[in-house]
């Protein structure tokens, strides 16, 4: 057993770079997550679809395997923008569940236990605290969205010469589309975690934000006979942006029914960007109000 001196002494050694300190929070969060079995199950579940997609790409280029399995090559889904958009749509749902599971526990325990003064009394800013927490979600969500997406793209590019050059837009679509989704989910989760101390309620509110706001937007459309109610529908906004990123006409496939948009109800892409930007701005404002060393009671 180590023997420790019962004395106080000044620390004289070198300090870590300031930019790296927010990663301390990320590292500790991941260490804590190791103990959560449910999380492992969700991550495992989210790897099934990429594996199936990889299998699909492999079969596309392996006639002997198709013959062996007695599959007609014409019946296979083509490997194109729609294929990758569908991939992203399915993974986005796993990302959503993962965020609903992990996100609410990121900030609320610190607020409940009044830990923020401890963090913020150090050379550590509010932005760094938020970054340290949100990067947990960024890493997790990246690992199930654009990172396997890039691997699939790489596999297809490897198996079909010249394909990558013609489909570079898919790559940017995967990257930007994933990050838009990741940012939206992580900001929403963190904002809810900062305001709702009870984790299950914060998780339920994440679902509520998507489905209730979507329903409310549809109700506006019906009552006012307009399409602008979709500006409240986050799924619709994301769908619109993804379609524009992947350069595919709006149709089924992108996250299946999740992002389906009826013909004639499309909103301009810039409106979707502005609306999503405003939504993220609200989340940031909510976070800024709560992440403080001490809360100011007004009155």
């Amino acid at each position, binding site marked *: 057993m*180590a023997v*420790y*001196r*019962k*004395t*106080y*002494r*000044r*620390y*004289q*050694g*070198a*300090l*870590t770079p*300031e930019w790296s*300190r927010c990663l*301390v*929070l990320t590292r*500790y969060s991941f260490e*804590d997550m190791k103990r959560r079995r449910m999380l492992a199950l969700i991550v495992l579940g989210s790897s099934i679809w990429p594996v199936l997609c990889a299998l699909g790409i492999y079969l596309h280029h392996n006639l002997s395997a198709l013959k062996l399995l007695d599959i007609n090559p014409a019946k296979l889904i083509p490997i194109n923008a729609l294929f990758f958009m569908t991939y992203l749509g399915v993974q986005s749902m796993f990302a959503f569940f993962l965020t609903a599971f992990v996100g609410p526990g990121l900030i609320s*325990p*610190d607020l*409940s*236990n*009044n*830990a923020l*003064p*401890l*963090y*913020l*009394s*150090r*050379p*550590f*800013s509010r932005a760094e605290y938020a970054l340290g927490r949100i990067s947990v979600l960024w890493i997790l969500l990246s690992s199930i969205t654009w990172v396997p997406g890039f691997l699939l793209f790489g596999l297809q590019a490897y198996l079909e010469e010249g394909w990558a050059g013609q489909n570079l837009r898919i790559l940017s679509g995967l990257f930007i589309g994933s990050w838009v989704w990741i940012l939206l989910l992580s900001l929403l989760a963190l904002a809810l975690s900062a305001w709702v101390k009870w984790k299950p309620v914060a998780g339920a509110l994440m679902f509520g934000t998507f489905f209730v706001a979507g329903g409310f937007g549809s109700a506006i459309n019906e009552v006012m006979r307009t399409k602008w109610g979709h500006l409240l529908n986050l799924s619709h906004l994301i769908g619109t942006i993804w379609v524009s990123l992947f350069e595919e006409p709006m149709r089924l496939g992108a996250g299946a029914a999740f992002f389906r948009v009826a013909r004639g109800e499309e909103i301009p892409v810039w409106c979707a960007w502005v609306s999503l930007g405003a939504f993220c701005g609200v989340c940031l404002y909510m976070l800024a109000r709560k992440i*403080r*060393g*001490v809360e*100011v*009671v*007004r*009155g």
Partner: protein
Amino acid sequence: MAAIIELDRLEVELGGRTILKQLNCSLTGRAIGLLGPNGAGKSTLINTLLGFYPPSAGTARVLGRDIRTAARNVRSLIGYMPESDSFIAGMSGVRFVRMMAELAGVPAEAALERAHEAFFYVGLGEARYREVGTYSLGMKQMTKLAQAIVHGPRLLFLDEPTNGLDPPARQRMIELIREIRDRGDLQLVLSSHLLHDVEECCDQVLILKDGSIAAFSNLEEERRSNRHFLEMETRGGDAAFVEAIQRLGCEAAWSGNGVIKLVMPDEVGIRQLYRLASERQVQIRRLHHKRDSLEDIFLKAMGVDRAGTNGGAARPEGTSGRL
């Protein structure tokens, strides 16, 4: 001595109300006490120095760094023990303190070693692997102290460190604070409701009232200067005896009933007083150093006299030193 904290017309407004009003002073002590009744602005002052509240006017400098322009730098020199229950859920004590050290910039390996040391230092070595949430109130206070010193700060802010502690735990905390103070390489600011805590640990006291400075006292100087202030109870002491004392070089005043108050210069010793009394057949029944206690200073600052009458100011609870 260089100023630890300089307040330069510091004003803080919160929720449309001015909480700190034009504070102006320079604190140089090794251990500075912040005293005042509830709502006086002690915690607001600490929170402002930590950068949690922005000053609405004026500024402050901590160890020469301006809190407006170098808040991060200021925080890198500070260790802070908050008043309220603060910890990170689901962590063992040592992991919690290690994390706090890492956030202050100590590399992971050194942070772990220092976390263990800090736990042993505050007397919680055996409980360091237990979850912080399961600690008793006294243990949590010690853990807060451990996280405040683990990264080796130059200035320590202690906000009500003895809150909720039983007498032995309080004594242990006070001893630790005095030990830290006496090391000399770490200054501390102690905010407390307990006069005795401040008196035992601090050499300078800033007394706040309604967001303003009600009094500033250098206890160290007070103690030094009052070392020569004597109150003598005599039998047979009269005006002639007082005159004889004055001829020795002392300032002396006879206040009736044989009580003489005197200030002795350095070159005069107690022995000379006894010799004089013996020569004049005067009995010295009692002799004691008389000085203003912190309680006297505090009561004066609050506008309260010993009998408890005041001009609307808060009255301390009894004379135990608790406000």
